[in-house]
């Protein structure tokens, strides 16, 4: 029961802040709502027993990536609102249409789900005896070692790319 309340509260916050991220005029406010959104996603991970991932979510997303966004927003101090220019080829209506269609589908699934409920989540989410961090670490360094290394290469390439792009004199 407590878990259900927590889930609904967190889910409502996630969706609410996500809507605010997309709709807010002021970019800085938008970034702030994004941080809040990520913090609630981290809370959701805790609810799912993924504490390590929750910590990583806060550390990397909220404390790293979004700071980068904020940094760029501050550097790009805008003289005119970015939304002024309108592209005639833009298919805004299509976006809303698509969203409406998927929303309809979601509603259908939700209704169907409440009629034929699926198997509930395991009561106390998976916290193996050895601990969540060990479990993830073990998987990362055994079965998924190569993807892990590739990811690190990706980050290296991204770092170099970002430096090259942002550097003034090459």
């Amino acid at each position, binding site marked *: 029961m407590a878990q259900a309340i927590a889930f609904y509260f967190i889910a409502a916050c996630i969706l609410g802040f996500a809507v605010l991220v997309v709709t807010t005029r*002021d970019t*800085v*406010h938008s970034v*702030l709502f994004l*941080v809040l959104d990520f*913090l609630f996603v981290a809370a959701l991970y805790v609810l799912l027993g993924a*504490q*390590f991932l*929750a*910590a*990583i979510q*806060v*550390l990397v997303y*909220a*404390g*790293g990536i979004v*700071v*980068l966004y*904020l*940094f760029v927003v*501050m*550097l790009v101090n805008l003289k005119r609102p970015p939304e002024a220019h309108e592209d005639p080829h833009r298919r805004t209506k299509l976006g809303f249409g698509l969203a409406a269609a998927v929303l309809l589908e979601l509603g259908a699934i939700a209704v169907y789900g409440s009629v034929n409920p699926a198997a509930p989540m395991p009561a106390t989410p998976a916290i193996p005896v050895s*601990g*969540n*961090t060990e479990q993830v670490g073990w998987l990362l360094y055994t079965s998924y070692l190569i993807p892990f290394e590739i990811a690190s290469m990706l980050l290296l390439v991204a770092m170099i790319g970002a430096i090259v792009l942002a550097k003034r004199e090459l």
Partner: protein
Amino acid sequence: MIDQVLIPLLKIVIVLNATLVAVTYMVLLERKVIAWAQSRLGPMRVGPYGVLQPIADAIKLMIKEDITPVRADKWVFTAAPIISMVPALIVYAVIPFGPTVSLFGRKVSLYITDINVGLLYIVSVASVGVYGIILAGYSSNSKYPLLASLRASAQLISYEVAVTLTLVSVILMAGSLSMVEIVNAQYNQHVWFVFAQPFAFVLVLIGGLAETNRAPFDLPEAEQELTGGFHTEYSGMRFALFFLAEYANMIVVSSVVTTLFLGGWLPPFPNVGALHLLYYVPSWTWFLIKSFLFLYLFIWIRATLPRYRYDQLMRLGWKVLIPLAILNLVVTGIVKVMLM
């Protein structure tokens, strides 16, 4: 019911209040210690030897007019001090002030909670604290604070990388992310990690100074360059919150360094039988003494050293601290594997 709700609640209340009192008295301590270093007396007027000065300061700051600049971003301007204060306080949830002791026939642990990602929790919560500074600078809609917050965001992110990388080698030694387990590991391995990981200790200390914006890394609030930095436009209680957050962060860094490197609540030489009588001193006293040493060190450094320049600071972070941290990590890993 009592164990589940009442005792944790009581612990939270005690820790929060103790922290806030400690933070206000840190201000006095800093003023006093710096004054002594500079052959002055420091505050002497309010109460004997100025001991009531923090209360006078608090009253002054509370009744001062709280100005919001006309062209500031009002919501963000108001939220920024709170954003910087909250992470500084919630970090205390995982800091172990002592082991589990029996109190009035009841087992009570001298920490609010012990989660299995404790250290990671501290690092991640601390990384959110940077928003307070960035947003304060941005929302003031003023040039000096903006420069300061650009400086702050770059500085804090860079040093966070260095500190986190260094902490990994400590985690490698302890084999756990839980703060309590790290202290226990120091007991079981018969060594404080400051002796096992001297480089890591120095790196974390330097990184901690930079993370808390303390001299010689106090660029975001360099009064001589940026007229006060990110809090130039703040006054009254909102300014006080920034001020308190900085000191709360100092206490956090001291506590974390104590826990990770100086054996937390353990007395000196915990495994030497002859010194067993040291266990009669309450464990949290040791913790407080060790933390105090670091706080004193922070103040001492502030009284002594000039300030780094922005580019030098970044160079130190990226070209010295991070490579050293990685090197330390690699060496620790190799030694650990060889010992196994």
